[in-house]
């Protein structure tokens, strides 16, 4: 198994926004989801997730509420806000442009 890739600086917010956009999630499920969808490639330390989440909440990009989970436990669920949606759309576009450009450059080199 190759080592999990560390995240490019600043992309954690984008990933969280994207995951939360699909459905309301709690911290634990966000971390699990992140690993799942990235095919275990992206690994976010459990600890780093929370400061990032709280910052997004403070910035008004996600909002949080306490709900009961499937296994009848109280957990904090995060939902995307309207400005969160806008930010996600913008950041995703930026990311695609950037990563597209980078892959392009890399392919050029391989030829």
């Amino acid at each position, binding site marked *: 198994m190759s080592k999990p890739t560390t995240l490019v600086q600043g992309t954690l917010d984008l990933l969280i926004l994207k995951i939360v956009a699909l459905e309301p999630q*709690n911290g634990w499920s966000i971390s699990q989801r992140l690993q799942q969808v990235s095919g275990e490639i992206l690994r976010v*330390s459990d*600890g780093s997730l929370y400061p990032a989440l709280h910052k997004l909440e*403070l910035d008004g990009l996600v909002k949080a509420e306490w709900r009961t989970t499937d296994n009848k436990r109280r*957990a*904090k669920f995060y939902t995307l806000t309207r400005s969160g949606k806008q930010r996600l759309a913008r950041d995703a576009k930026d990311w695609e442009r950037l990563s597209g450009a980078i892959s392009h450059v890399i392919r050029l080199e391989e030829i």
Partner: protein
Amino acid sequence: MRLFRKLRALFRRKQAERDLDDELQYHLEQRIGLERDRGLSAEEARAAALRSMEGLSQKKEECRDLRVFSLLEGCAQDLRYAARTLSRNRSFAAVAVLSLALGIGANTAIFSLMDVLLLRPLPVPESQNLIRIEANRGDPQAQTYLTYPIFEQIRDRNDFLAGTFTWSDHWFQMLSGSEMTHVNGALASGDYFRTLGVQAQIGRVFTPENDQPEGGKDGPVAVISDAFWSAHFQRSPAAVGAGITLDGVRFTIIGVMPRGFFGADVGMRPQIWAPLSLAARLDSPGCITSRSCWWLIVMGRRKDGVSLQQANARLAVLSPQVLRDTLPDWDSAGQKRYLGWRFQARSGANGWTSLRGTFNNPLAVLMILVGIVLLIACANMANLLLARATARQREIAVRMAMGAGRGRVIRQLLTESLLLSVLGGAAGLAFAVWSARLLVSFLTSTQRLAGQETGIQLDLHPDWRVMLFTLAAALLCGLIFGLAPALRATRGGVNAALKERTAGLQAGRAGTRLGKVILSVQSALSVLLVSGAGLFAGSLWHLLTLHPGFNPDNVMLISVDTAKRPERGAALARLYERLLERAQAIPGVKAASAVWITPLSNGGWDQYVKVPGRPDLTQEQTDTYMNLIGERYFEVMQTPVLAGREFSAADNGSSDKVGILNSMAARRFFPGGNALGSHVEVNGKPVRIVGVVGNAKYLNLQEAVPPTLYFPFMQSDQGNQSMTILLKIRGNVAGIYPAFHDALRGVAPGVPIRVVKTMQDQVDDSLGRERLLASLSVFFGVLALLLTSVGLYGVLAYSVTRRTGEIGLRMALGAHRRNVVLLVVRGTLGHVVAGIAVGVMLVLLLSKLVAGLLYGIRPNDPGNLVLAVAVFLVVAAGAAYLPARRASRLDPMMALREE
């Protein structure tokens, strides 16, 4: 929005904290469940879960930092913690607070004086629109006092002022019981109150209607102060409409001014205001119409929309016409110069006071001196904090290891230093209120014998500006000088901090390097202050020990006021003669005489004289100071009569005009030594010289003795001057005053006594500025030495404590006591010496700035510099002695065991 969310979080702190716990707890439990599913034991699963958090408490702290205005929340916590730590380290806290209190207190005291004299706006509506008008004579010193005709012209001709007013201090003579007393008051022009914008609290103020030579249709009216109302009318409303006799003129009181109103002269508290035009009937009859009587401060209020610049521009346009129409009766050269003057407007928002001119420069110098003291005090605090922070390295390390961020620890250390600063500031403010009073007593000399006040009163109640200044000084001090130690203590993070403790023998050295740099700065500043103190003290010493040309011992000065007597000319002279005869007979009086202008009163009368046969003398050289004196004047003053004689009873109105020259004038006018019997011309009239006397100081002690010509008052042209009686006495002053008072009542009933003091008082009073500078700079110098030695002691004592083990080891290996002392002192000595060198350079650079305030000593006087360095070295050695001795007396066994 973000701010709102933060604020809300702040108020729901507990809830938020629980939520955070719950959220993370949930996550941990899920993780543990997952790990257990993978087959780990309960403990292993828990450990793995915590590991995956990468520091649970740090992440929590990160979340908290985000969440709350953790600044505020943390501050309260820090404050509690700081208070607890400080109360456990009382001696440290006491030293820090005390040095700050002295530093900040001294600054606040000087600042509160500056505030009163220079900064505080007049307590009248929209004082920012007030201007003061003065004449620019083309030299740096503007003419602040103007003539009444100038005031009238400016008042009537300008179109940019909403009101123009002027005033002059005036001592009113008032009959109180059967005694004539003096009441401090002012003569003010009609628009004075309206322009200042202040109404009477009961009754009304006077207006231009009342400002007429005979008082207008209401007759002479007066307005009284709140204090006068209390003292003389018990605050009865009947005061309005009551009559009062001032200077022999019957006035009707028409109003009482509100409490706290003092007009526009910051240093004065007038009790009575009367219309200026009545001056013609009061004491100064000639001045009101005179074009060469400079006695009035002119102020005005700008119209809305007229800026100070515009007012200045309009005044410049107005100047030539005003000057042309107010030409003084001077010679043609003087008139030509006069026409070149220009009137200019200054801001009058802060009112005016004669103290400004005298104390502007000394106050600026003092402000710099106290600023340096504050710097030293702050450096001291930095050093103390540094020593403490290093001693607390372990505590800090533990806190950082437990998850406190570096910023958090720095903030906590800063809170401690700020708490110290604020405590120091509060103590400093109390110290300042007390010491500022002391300062004022330097500024205003009280007339001791008669128990009369000079009339100068300053409101030193600390206002918001002073408070703000103190607060700013305290906070800046705490912030700047708390920051360095805090940064240093937390440098290198957790590992370095934990390791520090075990670093053994070398630890002491690097740890105090910053402390030593601070120490050299303190040394430099101390040397600067001590040598400054030396300069000012030296100046005062020179002035106190110089021989003024007369002997002030046992000479009593009594100023009488005969302006209200009907006698004039020869008759008045005879009245004084009779008074002197009676005074002479008082037991204890050796000799009595009289003088018009008391020496060293900064007042003078000078004129150009013509010396027949000496056309080579320039006008400048014939500028001669004059005075009117009585018989036996030089005997009373013990000024030697070098040739000829004193004036006698025969030198009276019916004999030839005679005069006595001082040797300065005699040598200049008659270099051949033939002054006696020669003539000089004054106002075109010949004066025969009958005597030559020794040089005596005239205006003040600082200025060189000018050429002086004395006249007998018996021959005075006008003969209406009020004289000062001089009594050379034997022994006790107290018994003589009542006897003189009786004599005065016998000769001229109703003549009031203005001032009673000794000639020594006169000498002392004339040195108020020098005394102020010398006393305070010495005080600050001592303070600087004290603070620096505390700092030096602290650094050394601390390094001895830190190096106990090393010293013990060296001693166990055979090091001699002397070597140990050297070891302790050596590291610091270099820094102190470097500091002294810098200090000496600073002195050489900066002392030129105060050259104008020195007398008889050069700013870079080498003796003074050597003395300053020597004093500093002695004090520094004293401070170093204690810790060094302690080190040399260490018991090696004990020391090693301790390590």
